[in-house]
């Protein structure tokens, strides 16, 4: 019989920190990682020596990234492990930190994602199994195919997809850690060069540099270290799954998300109506629309109307991608999933400033990684 977080001891996010996501730069990963970790330690107001374990999510850096920058926090001897799980690397690092603390093996654990934009090296390309589409199937084309299918089956127009990008760029304009920080009009988004199908440039996420860090602690550590309990945000579900074989006509990323989210809801004893803030893997605008349905926020025929009515904007019934999402906050790979947890935590603390969702109590973070894998966490303000 497997256990969910509810069967283990309570765990809390007590510190968050980011290094701004952005275009590839001369700033080293050491500096990016340290910026995020120091910010998280400072936010938690604890000495770094209290951190017993670090899970480092990275895709591009190569082996043994953690020691190469964490040593400059003071070499405390903490446990270090590196986690790679494609786009879900950061989410998986956060899950490892959660499991260590929930199980009692650590009292305080760090999850940090750090990456520099660079070519990636995938195992799937080494299986010897070819594909008909090959290099022609760029990621934007794969998701544009989903968009084409959805626009054919449901009341969804190219403008509706563009509106998702407009919303997310508007949110990111209030996020000092976002890759893009400029609002765009619907006309601007629609008139940009197309990448594939209906997807124009700013409906596709930027891949750049960045870092994000989160500190997870037990109740005992919160008491012992004098951490402010009212700023601690409880993690009530952590679920990881991978793709199964789905029926023709179903999109794997959507069905995998549906299954993973269902387990997370059960573990957290919440449902879609309880969600105030959601961060999803919106690498392309169409994904956010599909995940709204997979999360149960609305059905496929309602999704576009929800976007048009502003129900997923900050101030709507459930703010989706309040950070700007992958589309506008950016997708530096390793940091992305950790950065989502930073945003949910900020929102549930009521510290998100101009992009604050009013009265946010429950949040969900969702990432998929190519392959495919899916990681979902639910956080709750107690």
């Amino acid at each position, binding site marked *: 019989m497997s256990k969910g977080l509810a069967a283990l001891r309570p765990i809390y996010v007590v510190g968050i920190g980011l290094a701004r996501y952005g275009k590839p730069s001369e700033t080293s990963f050491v500096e990016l990682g340290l910026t995020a970790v120091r910010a998280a330690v400072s936010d938690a107001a604890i000495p770094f020596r209290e951190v017993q374990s670090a899970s480092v999510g990275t895709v591009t850096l190569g082996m043994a990234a953690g020691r190469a920058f964490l040593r400059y926090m003071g070499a405390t001897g903490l446990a270090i492990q590196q986690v790679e799980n494609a786009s879900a690397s950061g989410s998986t690092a956060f899950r490892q930190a959660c499991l260590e603390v929930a199980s009692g093996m650590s009292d305080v654990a760090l999850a940090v994602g750090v990456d520099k934009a660079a070519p990636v090296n995938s195992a799937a390309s080494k*299986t010897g*199994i*070819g*594909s*008909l*589409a*090959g*290099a*022609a*199937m*760029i990621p*934007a*084309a*794969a998701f*544009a*195919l*989903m*968009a*084409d*299918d959805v626009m*054919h089956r449901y009341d969804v127009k190219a403008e509706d997809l563009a509106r998702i990008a407009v919303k997310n760029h508007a949110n990111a304009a209030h996020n000092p850690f976002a890759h893009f920080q400029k609002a765009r009009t619907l006309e601007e988004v629609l008139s940009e*060069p*197309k*990448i*594939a*199908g*209906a997807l124009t440039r700013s409906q596709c996420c930027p891949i750049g540099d960045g870092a994000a860090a989160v500190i997870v602690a037990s109740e005992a550590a919160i008491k012992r270290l004098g951490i402010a309990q009212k700023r601690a945000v409880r993690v009530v579900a952590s679920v990881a799954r991978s793709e199964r*074989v789905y029926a*023709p*006509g179903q999109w794997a990323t959507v069905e995998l998300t549906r299954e993973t989210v269902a387990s997370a809801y059960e573990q957290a004893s919440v449902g879609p109506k309880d969600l105030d803030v959601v961060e999803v893997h919106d690498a392309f605008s169409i994904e956010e629309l599909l995940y709204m349905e997979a999360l149960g926020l609305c059905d496929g025929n309602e999704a576009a109307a929800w976007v048009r009515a502003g129900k997923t904007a900050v101030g709507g019934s459930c703010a989706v991608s309040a950070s700007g999402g992958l589309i506008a906050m950016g997708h530096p790979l390793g940091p992305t999933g950790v950065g989502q947890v930073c945003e949910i935590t900020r929102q549930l603390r009521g510290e998100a400033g101009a992009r604050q969702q009013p009265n946010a109590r429950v949040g969900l973070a969702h990432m998929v990684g190519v392959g495919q894998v899916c990681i979902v966490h639910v956080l709750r303000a107690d």
Partner: protein
Amino acid sequence: MAEPSVRKPALVLTKEGGSAPLLRARRCTCGHVSFPPQSFGCERCGREGGELSDVELATRGVLTAVVQVYVHSKIPVPYAIGRVQLDEGPAIDAPLDGREPLAIGTRVVGALTPTDDASSGAEFRFAREGSVQ
């Protein structure tokens, strides 16, 4: 005239007589068809070895999604790519014949299209059924 050599012969099979190309696949005793073909094991049930056998799939089907790609670092753009629900089961993604726009619901069939790089052989693409032999 000799048949053109085919790109990706591990996936695409041609028969004498100029009929539409076929796709190589593997069928498990559970009924699951793997395309592209592989011998590692069945993705649905985990069976392996002799439980998997070679099959040839006819390439007739229906286009269920289609897009133009406008940006690529190596392939000339624009080009069309689509998802096809084969009559014989699997849904597969492949390049489309770019001579005419194809809409969702169009009946298509595989065809071998000569490419600019003659040395690398003809490419498998889907085209409107009836537009090719």
